[in-house]
């Protein structure tokens, strides 16, 4: 971005994505404490999941005779009813939970951003229609819809990702719409329109870079919410049994709640720490659900 620094303030918005993102990051250099704590939680879980093979040599799917053993030196988190090592199951289960969370968040944030930008930018009837649809989606019991769809269509990671992603976009759409409505009347947008840029170009080059910071916040909250939704589906037995996620582990834990506390406690700690970490990140960056406010 050769001219990014020298351009006068109102025109800075016309510079490329890279400059905007960099400027955004520079602004959040002094991160709030909540975000730092959130990042620490997410980093602990993330590194554990990433380096799972270094942390345990156990196979998360290997059966053994050592059933329902309490935590010990050989099995730091104990074993389940089929003698599988719980540490390995929690670490590898995290890969499933996080993947579903990430992919469905990409889908929902992408959808929400598109819908929010279009509604906020064009306003009028289009905005009205899109917002009524968004409200309808917000009122519908999203998780119950997901349960019915997955029960009918069949479980599997792809279905889970699609269902969660397609149901979770309204929050992002509302935040982005609100932001776009504000910048819609800025001078640089008018300047771009007057210079003959198409609406597609205005949206992509001038509006989108300005909602990026909000998108980061939205994304971290969305990943948290998607992981929660996935665990909900898995807990109801609608997860992918060949790829056990944290929710599935907790479902198994429920069966042995009175005999084996570790089966519930450890996967739950991992799950709650991840969700809390991501919520802290989003909340600290100023876009928490409380900060965003409910609909007017």
């Amino acid at each position, binding site marked *: 971005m050769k001219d990014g620094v020298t351009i006068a303030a109102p025109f800075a918005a016309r510079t490329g994505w890279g400059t905007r993102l960099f400027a955004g990051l520079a602004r959040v250099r002094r991160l709030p404490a909540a975000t730092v704590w959130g990042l620490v939680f997410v980093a602990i879980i993330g590194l554990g999941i990433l380096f799972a093979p270094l942390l345990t040599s156990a196979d998360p799917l290997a059966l053994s005779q050592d059933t329902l053993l309490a935590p010990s030196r050989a099995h730091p988190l104990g074993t389940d009813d089929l003698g599988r090592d719980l540490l390995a199951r929690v670490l590898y289960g995290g890969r499933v939970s996080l993947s579903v969370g990430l992919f469905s968040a990409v889908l929902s944030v992408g959808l929400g951003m598109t819908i929010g930008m279009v509604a906020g930018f064009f306003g009028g009837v289009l905005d009205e229609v899109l917002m009524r649809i968004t409200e309808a989606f917000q009122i519908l*019991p999203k998780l119950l819809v997901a349960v019915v769809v997955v029960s009918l269509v069949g479980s599997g990671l792809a279905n889970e990702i699609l269902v969660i992603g397609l149901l979770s976009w309204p929050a992002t759409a509302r935040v982005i719409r609100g932001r776009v409505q504000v910048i819609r009347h800025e001078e640089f947008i008018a300047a771009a329109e007057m210079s003959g840029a198409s609406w597609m170009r205005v949206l992509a080059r001038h509006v989108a870079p300005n909602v990026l910071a909000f998108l980061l916040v939205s994304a971290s909250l969305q990943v948290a919410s998607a992981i929660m939704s996935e665990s909900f589906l898995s807990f109801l037995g*609608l997860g992918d049994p060949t790829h056990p996620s944290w929710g599935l582990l907790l479902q198994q834990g*429920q069966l042995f709640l009175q005999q084996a506390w570790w089966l519930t406690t450890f996967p739950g700690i991992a799950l*709650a720490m991840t*969700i809390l970490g991501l919520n802290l990140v989003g909340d600290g960056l100023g876009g928490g659900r*409380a900060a965003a*406010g409910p609909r007017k």
Partner: protein
Amino acid sequence: MPIGIPVIARLLLRRLLLAVPLVLAVVTLTFFFIRLAPGDPAAILAGDAPTPEFLAQIRAEYGLDKPVWAQFLAFLGKAVTGDFGTSIYANRPVFEVILERFPATVLITGTAMIVASVLGIVIGVASAKRAGSSADALISSASLVGYSLPGFWLGQLLILLFAVSLNWLPTGGMTAARASYHGFRHVQDVALHMVLPVTTLAVFLLTMIARFTRTAMIEALDQDYVLVAEAKGASRGRLLWHHAFRNAAVTTVTVIGLEFGAVLAGVVVVEIVFAWPGLGRLFYDAIYRRDFPLLTGAFMFSSFIVIVVNMVSDVACALLDPRIRR
């Protein structure tokens, strides 16, 4: 200014009209789901290994031999009149099975919502009053933790602590299995069984209400009319509750309405964890028994309830805030 009956009636009518498209959307979605699922819709509705006679009966019942639009109209007509089909497992009308389980769910959901609203409002107002203090920071962090805990895991932890380790409270069910109490003892027994499920269910809503109420209260306390009231010598309590909270309450009520769908999803897992014989448990059993008429029926029923609750919360907002009344 007292609010006359005509105002409320007009409001209700308005919201009812707004609810119609939502009800239509729910029914359309359900219809779409059943058709979307791979395979023969009749086979899906009939569950596993149906007899050819049963398949034929289902086809005739749902008009699956007719064109799609006719099928949809038939489905819609039945759905809005409460005819959700026949449960495969119970072999009784779905609506009847649902109504049977409904009171148990209303009992814990209603109690949890009252507890969450009262505590959430008090906590939210108290922390807004001390905004920026360490007590406020502590409450905010605690509510973020509460909001991040998956409901079913919280329930499991409560069972491990209060039922398994301390043995203070029952692990689940609605009544003691080994005794049949009557009168006051029965009420006491059910109440004891309600403590953990209601706590689990209330935590999520409580934290949401506290967070939003806090934000709305901070905003309201900053307004000129609060300053005027203070200058006129209003007491601290009157300032908080009469002047500020009356304005923040709109936010609180809206949150309760918007989060009600999430509360119902929470009921499903709470009823599983605590073996509570309600609608959520029925929903879960329907998944397992592949009782699709029951599943889709329970879904439509819950969605209608969500729509009604949102309608009530909209009307309540309008009654609280004359500016919304148009």
